[in-house]
């Protein structure tokens, strides 16, 4: 069996003259929650898109579940929550769930069962029939997350899943992610929130397409002699530039 669910070796991606991913080497083991941190335009979304076979690398290599990407065969095994809303806003929550469930080959019964479980998690049980564009931004993000989790994929790519979600619910999300992890799910997640980063097994700091540091939250704090990941990131990115 493959132990590294994600592996990139000197991965590169450029858009015209812009180097969005630069000599990026990373391993994520099975059953880990790996957090990618970095400012806007650092390349987090681009990296996730390459791993989901949505963009072609321009250099190096990336492997997901042991397969070199792009590869459509791994699609049923991954769950992807894009940074954009990625929901049909003119239809109801239920209709979105039903559609994405069908795309992943779930039966009607499975869809209904998963819908109940997930809507309880995201605290939207009362809104099944609600039209998506009538929901608040935070609620919409929660529905989007539910759609990525429907088919219980062993590997999850979550691009800023908690943006606009209130702190309490964010914590319950993380409890759920940890539950998934205990069940063997591997998660690559991007976030701005440092309190969330603390709950990752390992964290990677990303800056201008490069991985500037990587390790458990503790290791990164020790390395920089600070007690906040925010400071750790600032110190490391200054070193990188300086």
């Amino acid at each position: 069996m493959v132990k590294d669910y994600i592996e990139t070796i000197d991965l590169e991606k450029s858009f015209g003259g812009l180097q969005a991913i630069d000599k990026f080497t990373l391993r994520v083991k099975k059953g880990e929650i790996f957090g990618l941190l970095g400012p806007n335009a650092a390349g987090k979304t681009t990296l996730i898109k390459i791993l989901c076979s949505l963009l072609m690398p321009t250099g190096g290599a990336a492997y997901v579940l042991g397969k070199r990407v792009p590869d459509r065969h791994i699609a049923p095994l991954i769950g992807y929550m894009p940074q954009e809303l990625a929901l049909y806003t003119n239809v109801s929550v239920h209709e979105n769930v039903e559609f994405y469930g069908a795309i992943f080959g779930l039966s009607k019964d499975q869809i209904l069962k998963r819908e109940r479980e997930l809507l309880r998690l995201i605290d939207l049980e009362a809104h099944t029939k609600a039209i998506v564009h009538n929901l608040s931004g935070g609620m919409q993000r929660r529905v989007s997350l539910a759609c990525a989790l429907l088919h219980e994929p062993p590997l999850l790519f979550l691009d800023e899943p908690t943006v606009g979600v209130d702190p309490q619910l964010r914590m319950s999300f993380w409890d759920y992610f940890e539950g998934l992890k205990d069940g063997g799910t591997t998660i690559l997640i991007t976030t701005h929130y440092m309190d969330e980063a603390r709950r990752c097994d390992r964290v990677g700091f990303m800056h201008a397409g490069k991985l500037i540091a990587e390790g458990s939250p503790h290791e990164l704090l020790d390395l920089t002699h600070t007690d906040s990941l925010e400071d750790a990131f600032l110190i490391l990115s200054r070193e990188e530039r300086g």
Partner: protein
Amino acid sequence: MNVGRPVAVVKRVVADLNVARGERMNIGRVVAVVKRVFADLNHDKRTVGLIVIVPLLFMLAFGFAFQGDVRDVRVLVVNDDNGGGLGNASISDRVIANLDTATLTVDSATNESAAVAEVQNGKAYAVIVFPTNLTETVYGTAAQPPLAAQANPPGIIAINPQAKVSIRVLADKSNTEVSRAIITAVNAAVLKTADENGQSQRLSVDTTGAIYGLNARFIDFFCPGIVCLAIWNLTTLLTLQAFVGEREIGTLQRLFASPLRESELVAGYSIAYGTLGVMQAGLLLAVGVLLFNVIIVGNIILAFATIALLAIVSQALGILLSSVAHSQREAGEFMPFLMLSAVLLSGIIWPIEAIPVWLRPASYLIPTTYAVEAVRSVMMRGWGLSMIWVDIVALLVFAITFLVLAVIMLKKRE
């Protein structure tokens, strides 16, 4: 009624007017707005291009397409006129010689039934029949010796001064513009002939007969065109906007990271929009029949199938165009081009026969040309699949090409 309330209303209105009077315009701010609009355009070369190109295109397209008269329409002549012994001076030969050869391409046929069969097969637009006794009746003289050398042919003794004779025009009236042009041309030739020899009283043109589209009005001719135009425009635009929307909001990304294949996505859209196209067409035809008494001669199922095919072509084109449009607004910019191409070049209002010859190849690059031709032939001529198969094959070629290109385009990864 309480007087206080209306008074309060009046006061409020007056107060509003006062506010309006207080509206002092500051020229500096107005100029700032003007500047901003132009600054915007300065950064949006695409819109500037549109502002220049679209009106020019309208002018050129309308100018060229509508400038032309109907041309090169093939008609068949059945000349049974025995010439009344006048040989070359027979009335039929003169009328034929006087036919406007720019409008009509004149060929002769041996007999009426063979000629009619050719029109029925769509190989010609009309049959012009000259009866046996044409020249005799016009001159009122039978078997006179040829007197062609004389300035005025002899009208000596009228056998029967009341006798009249008609040239019959049997036209395919399914294309009202073309049949009108044919009838005008024949009438003109007859008038000219009569002018030349002053024997017009006994001669007339009978245009009541029709091979197709007897009693057809412009609306009968126009209706299939409107249906095709509506399907073409709406379906292309709707899928174009749907795909641009899916791209913008990220659903397309999610789908491409799922087991859904691009071909499945395109097939799903095709079935959905094909069905919608048929429903739209059903609605439009119902209005046509119930409100405007549009005549439908042929198999309506075949017409609907053709329209569904056009809808599939259109939605595939919409998907294709979505790769060039990056926003809903840019998507809307395709509207004038779709509209122009169909209205002007595909025979919806203006027959292909009236488009200048050098511009006609453009017509055959537009899918609506084939759809309009096929649907019109089914509805007005009652043609079946054996007659419209060329159009159907053309539409199928468009459909397959566009669908394959759409799938390839969607599969492409940056």
